[in-house]
């Protein structure tokens, strides 16, 4: 079945010209990439733009994927590059619309309100960090990568990655919104 195929198999099929395999690959990672983008750029419109840029980058670089690493790690390396580039290029939305980070499943309004609130607090706190620190926090805590992976992604040493993370945590420690999110 195409739906249960491994990432590597889907990549191989996509490279052989299978649109179905490529779409399955996108479908598998679009939510993860979208949420990554949402935490990095906060605004849903920007997150959608960034998500498109990430998948465009993946598509363009797919022939260069050697399959010797884990696909998500490779994908998020591209995402990190794209995001850094995106943040460098665009001017941030200075005012944050409280309604912007919405939750897709409106089945339980109370849960939805809490989830929206938590997402907003976390995004607001992360937005206060410099881009390079935000990357490390994102990759360590939300993508569960090791310091070695993060170092490889960002082209820095594991120690530098750790130093950036600790600097970020010390800044976040003072952020009251984060306490509210919990």
């Amino acid at each position, binding site marked *: 079945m195409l739906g249960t195929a491994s990432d590597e198999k889907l990549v191989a099929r996509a490279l052989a010209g299978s649109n179905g395999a490529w779409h399955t690959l996108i479908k598998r990672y679009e939510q993860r990439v*979208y949420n990554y983008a949402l935490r990095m750029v906060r605004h849903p419109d920007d997150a*959608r733009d960034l998500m*498109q840029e990430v998948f465009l980058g993946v*598509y363009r670089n797919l022939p260069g994927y050697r399959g010797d690493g884990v696909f998500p790690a490779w994908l998020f390396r591209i995402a990190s590059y794209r995001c850094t580039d995106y943040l460098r290029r*665009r001017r941030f939305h200075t005012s944050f619309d409280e309604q912007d980070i919405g939750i*897709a499943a409106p089945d339980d309004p109370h849960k939805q309100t809490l989830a929206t609130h938590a*997402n907003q607090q976390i995004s607001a706190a992360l937005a206060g960090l410099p881009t390079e620190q935000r990357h490390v926090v994102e990759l360590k805590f939300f993508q569960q990568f090791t310091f070695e992976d993060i170092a490889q992604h960002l082209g820095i040493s594991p120690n530098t990655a750790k130093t950036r993370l600790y600097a970020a945590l010390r800044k976040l420690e003072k952020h009251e919104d984060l306490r509210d999110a919990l």
Partner: protein
Amino acid sequence: MHCDQAETLMFDYVEDRLSHDMRMRVGDHLEGCASCQGLHNGILDMQAQARVWHDVAPPPWQLPRVHSRFDLSGMAQWFPSLASAVALILVITIYFQQPGQAPLGQPALLPSPTPSPMANTDTQPVLEHLRASSRDQRQQEMEALVRLLKAEMDRRSLETEESLRYVIAHQIQGQRELDDLSRQVQQINYPVPAADTRGERM
């Protein structure tokens, strides 16, 4: 244990990847060091926040947009728009480039216009670039394109105005010449009688 050693081992401590002895040493350090304690709590807090983040599904219309960048069916969706835009720009360029052949027509007396800078612009790379860039970039570039188009239209308006003045001036001059010619013809056909002239003088 010093703070820098404790910091190096902090994640391994939190993720329980240290030997019993090392774990005890880091734990002892944490009890007596407020700074490292703060870092430790920060890691725990951030881990908790990552857990409370509620994954948001991309909007339903996002998927076709993403896919449309890659397959032929998607190309079929944007290609008509791109073709229309190219056609529009070409029509505008041709219209301004060849005023002599414009639908309204202009007299042959008009001075030939100077070549338009837009006429020399290859629009295809510009449009390709626009398509590949982000939303904000696209907007900025579209605005720049509109400004260029407006400037070009202004320049053309001035040229047209000058041309019209030229035509009017020549028409006025031509009218005078025509009037003179008409008077001469009248004088030839209906010469004024000399007697009458004398009579009038009397």
